[in-house]
């Protein structure tokens, strides 16, 4: 089920209502059934994958606790099983096709398996759990149903945030009651998420998709504009999804981890990666970068580690060369930034001015790199950058755009800047009633945008669902 699909708007109120009607001791069962239903609604056989991953990692973690001398074996079994599933469904065809392209004479018949939604997210969540149990950072969970709920909790199941056991499980166990503060906080996240998705991402995506459908038809200026627009689309799409997830979880009494912290206001790439998809980057730092030696084994090793991490990050986003190039480009830019850090810090400029310049430069670099991410092939990449850098023509064709759509896009971006300041409905707040009408107006706008997208067949699924 998708957060923007109509059945979800029936599913969510029913789950929330039952959740607060049921006594605390049955709530986890309701949430588990609801989560599996939510997942199976997309495709029932997906359940087999998540259930088998849950069972195997649950047993392996228990095995590590019971037989400490054999814990390496249990860790290896868990890693091979979880990453093996991910490899088969996500990377097998891609790997075989690479062998064929490399000239190896193997007969290759693509399996064309459907990528199970959310597999990259819950694989990493289970991996983090078994590694933590292996290292003794956390204890194995003995209650299988609570563990299953930890893996499948529906607000964060299909696109994160990737949660650690010690953050999510105690909250799922605790008795949770709805109060006005939690409700207001949840509503704020929920509405902000939908505004980002429906009013900004979906509107701009129409333009971006049009340009990227056939790049050869458009000028360098249009490609540049659509690439920068894609930067807004992907931010609003993914952070919008995360906001909706955070909002729903808050209504269920659970605080999920924050995945975004206004990343486009970062003054360096290093800062950007601390503010963009935070839980995934925490995973890479803790389970790949630091075990590889991090920055403690000399400069060359540090840069190699950065490249490895960003290579994996690119590959995690999809089995395609353009994702790998996107990851490597970020890795290289981070290395260059690190090399330039000392000379740049010697430049005498006010801190504020340095920060502004840093924000602008980071924004431009990150958005230029989105071209690698959004491209469909290496040929696309060649067209994008050759047109932007080699034959830049400031021509702009607005024929497929209505004036309303342009103004809505501009107003939507202005709204995006205001959203962090959106007031919260909370206990003792004098203006609660005024805020209710403000939210009602926002919901009205989102509702109209939603039906507009539905009737015009526009973007409705979340980009990160494909990862």
């Amino acid at each position: 089920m998708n957060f923007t699909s109509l059945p979800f708007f029936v599913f969510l109120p029913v789950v929330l209502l039952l959740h607060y009607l049921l006594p605390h001791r049955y709530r986890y069962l309701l949430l588990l059934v609801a989560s599996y239903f939510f997942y199976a609604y997309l495709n029932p056989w997906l359940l087999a994958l998540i259930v088998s991953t849950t069972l195997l990692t649950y047993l392996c973690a228990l095995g590590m606790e019971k037989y400490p001398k054999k814990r390496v074996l249990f860790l290896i079994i868990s890693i091979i099983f979880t990453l093996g599933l991910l490899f088969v469904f996500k990377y097998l065809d891609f790997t075989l096709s690479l062998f064929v392209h490399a000239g190896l004479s193997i007969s290759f018949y693509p399996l064309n398996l459907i990528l199970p939604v959310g597999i990259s997210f819950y694989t990493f969540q289970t991996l983090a759990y078994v590694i933590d149990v292996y290292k003794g950072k956390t204890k194995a969970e003995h209650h299988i149903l609570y563990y299953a709920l930890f893996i499948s909790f529906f607000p964060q199941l299909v696109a994160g945030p990737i949660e650690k056991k010690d953050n999510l499980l105690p909250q799922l166990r605790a008795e949770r009651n709805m109060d006005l503060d939690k409700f207001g906080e949840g509503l704020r996240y929920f509405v902000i998420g939908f505004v980002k998705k429906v009013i900004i991402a979906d509107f701009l995506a129409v333009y971006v998709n049009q340009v990227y459908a056939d790049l050869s038809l458009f000028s360098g200026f249009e490609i540049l504009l659509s690439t920068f627009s894609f930067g807004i689309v992907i931010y609003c799409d993914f952070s919008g999804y995360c906001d909706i997830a955070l909002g729903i979880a808050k209504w269920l009494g659970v605080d999920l981890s924050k995945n975004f912290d206004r990343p486009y206001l970062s003054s360096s790439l290093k800062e950007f990666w601390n503010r963009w998809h935070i839980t995934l980057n925490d995973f890479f730092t803790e389970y790949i970068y630091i075990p590889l030696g991090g920055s403690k084994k000399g400069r060359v090793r540090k840069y190699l580690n950065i490249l490895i991490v960003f290579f994996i990050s690119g590959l995690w986003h999809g089995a395609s060369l353009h994702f790998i190039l996107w990851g490597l480009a970020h890795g290289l830019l981070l290395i260059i930034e690190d090399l330039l850090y000392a000379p740049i810090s010697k430049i005498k400029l006010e801190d504020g001015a340095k920060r502004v310049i840093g924000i602008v430069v980071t924004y431009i670099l990150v958005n230029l790199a989105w071209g690698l991410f959004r491209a469909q092939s290496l040929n696309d990449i060649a067209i994008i950058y050759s047109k932007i850098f080699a034959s830049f023509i400031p021509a702009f064709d607005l024929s497929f755009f209505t004036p309303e759509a342009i103004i809505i896009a501009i107003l939507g971006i202005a709204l995006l800047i205001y959203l962090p300041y959106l007031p919260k409905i909370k206990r003792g707040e004098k203006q609660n009633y005024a805020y209710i009408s403000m939210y009602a107006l926002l919901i009205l706008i989102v509702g109209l945008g939603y039906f507009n997208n539905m009737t015009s067949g526009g973007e409705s699924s979340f980009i990160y669902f494909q990862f």
Partner: protein
Amino acid sequence: MIVFAQPILFLPLCLGLLLMVVFSFIHRLCLLGNLLGIASIATYVVLSFLFGANYLEIILVLLITLAIYFLFDAVRRRLGK
């Protein structure tokens, strides 16, 4: 655009905005005023559809309305009301 060609449509919209802004200063009547305000704006949406406006036009006008409301809200907060 149809909504701009039919000035009568702006009556419920402006009334709704006025009610929401004014009554946010009067705490006792805040709920009533804001409910009437949002009902008035909903009337605008229905009327716009009846006049044949499309989604984009209505959304555009509502976004402008929201921007004006945010502006008043910022002023109100600055005044500490």
